[in-house]
């Protein structure tokens, strides 16, 4: 049913550290790799080796530049996937009941055998988290690797979403954001984790940790600096002669 659960037992989700992400896109590739051959229809590509390639991805990394009023600009890599919203508009708009939010862990999923591919859920999502697969005609989205996190056939260390397992920088964290004592919840409160587009009223479960402020270059960078002052302030020898001659011209 597309009625949202009034509350979920747990709120499983991701915490993404914008301070740590290096923009390597490894999470994008590992996500596509895992999800194209596991849960549901494959993530197809169209014209993959042609002049206009395009394909279905559940996770994409944007890059933004932020220019503060003072100080230097900062480059921020910005991975974006489904935020598994508590008030997920993509679920309630679905006419067939294919979209649903699980009461046990809050994961938003698509039952692909019920999806008619009308696209309305993608229209309702402010984050661009849903993409209609061109080959299969059904809506694809992040499953939070539901086929990994409870999979007892995998070593315990692998029972986390593929993107989190892959991230070489440790910029992605997975856990229960409904439990205030969980590691991810502590991280969010320590680092003032934020919601994307809070004005949309979607109440995202996934949180983003803002980048830390950049160091400011102070006037005197080292107490020894005055001793390192340039020895020759005026050019001498040939360069000195050239300088004086050019000055006179």
């Amino acid at each position, binding site marked *: *049913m*597309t*009625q949202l659960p009034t509350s979920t037992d747990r709120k499983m989700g991701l915490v993404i550290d*914008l301070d740590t992400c290096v923009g390597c*896109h490894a999470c*994008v590739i590992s996500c596509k790799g895992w999800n194209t051959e596991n849960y549901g229809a494959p993530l197809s590509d169209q014209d993959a080796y042609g002049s*206009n390639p*395009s*394909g*279905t*991805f559940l996770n*994409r990394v*944007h*890059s*933004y*530049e*932020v*220019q*503060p009023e003072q100080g230097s600009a*900062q*480059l*921020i890599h*910005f991975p*974006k996937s489904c935020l598994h919203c508590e008030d997920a*508009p993509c*679920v*309630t*708009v*679905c*006419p*067939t*009941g*294919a979209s649903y939010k699980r009461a046990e862990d809050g994961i938003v999923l698509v039952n692909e055998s*019920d*999806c*008619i*591919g*009308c*696209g*309305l859920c*993608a*229209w*309702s*999502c*402010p*984050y*661009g988290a849903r*993409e*209609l697969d061109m080959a299969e*005609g*059904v*809506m694809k989205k992040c499953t939070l690797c539901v086929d990994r996190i409870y999979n007892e056939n995998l070593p315990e260390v692998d029972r986390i979403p593929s993107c989190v397992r892959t991230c070489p920088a440790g910029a992605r964290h997975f856990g229960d954001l409904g439990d205030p004592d969980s590691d991810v919840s502590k991280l969010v409160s320590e680092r003032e984790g934020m*919601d*994307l*587009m*809070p*004005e*949309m009223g979607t109440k995202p479960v996934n949180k983003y940790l*803002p*980048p830390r402020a950049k160091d400011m270059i102070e006037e005197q960078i080292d107490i020894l600096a005055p001793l390192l002052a340039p020895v020759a302030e005026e050019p001498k020898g040939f360069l000195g002669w050239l300088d004086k001659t050019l000055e006179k011209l």
Partner: protein
Amino acid sequence: MHPAPSVIIFTTLSGLGFGLLFFLGLGLPDVSGWVAFIFFAIANALAVGGLLASTFHLGHPERAWKAFTQWKTSWLSREGWCAVLALITMGLYALGVVFLGQRWNLLGWIGALLSLATVFTTSMIYTQLRTIPRWNMKLTPAMFLSFSLAGGSLLAGQTSIAVPLLLLAALVQLLYWRQGDKAFSASGTNLGTATGLGQRGAVRTFEPPHTGTNYLLREFVYVVGRNHAEKLRVISFVLAFALPILLLLIPFSHFFALLAVLSHLAGIATSRWLFFAQAEHVVGLYYGKR
């Protein structure tokens, strides 16, 4: 938003068809026998034709029947129910009028209300989307309903009702354009809130996630034709409202009435194209596009 022909045909034709069914349900015009048959055939062809066109953009049209299950939350599902109930009710009413010489008034009124409800539910599919500020306004259902009533009265040949209804629809159209143009900036959503980085400084897209295009950009970021939006607005306004009103005010002839209907239809289709093509989805912000 990508102006998919299937959805433009659907909303334009179905709006007109259900508008005509509304007036037929009220007994306007008071016809019976073969004349009534033709009126009902036109109304049903428009309404059903539009509904069928809407299934063309589905990934899996064969599962469309499943769309009747989620009426508790989904406006698309509610629209399906309203459309089917309206068509069944008006079908029974038409049987009486065409073949039995009977006018079951109550059934006609219920069918008329269901026809309007169908148009309303269609408009709510778009209105409910907070992600598209230009649609997320009370004027959206007002526009769909006023267009449907104006077109329906025109098709039903109710000249005296059609002129004021066309004037009303024209006014709603102008208000919709005026408020719609301000909607995106008024929504308060920008790249700053989208990334959560807005309070740190000016946010600018530096590099997109991929060099090619994707489903999101094809579906939500449609900029072709926006250059000509102002001209198309004038064309659509003249065709949909100004010309039909003029043709109705001069002494009546069937040829002018037909011309008025065709002009209105072309004008509404143009306006509906603009409704989609000019609608900007907030997801475009992430790509530095609108």
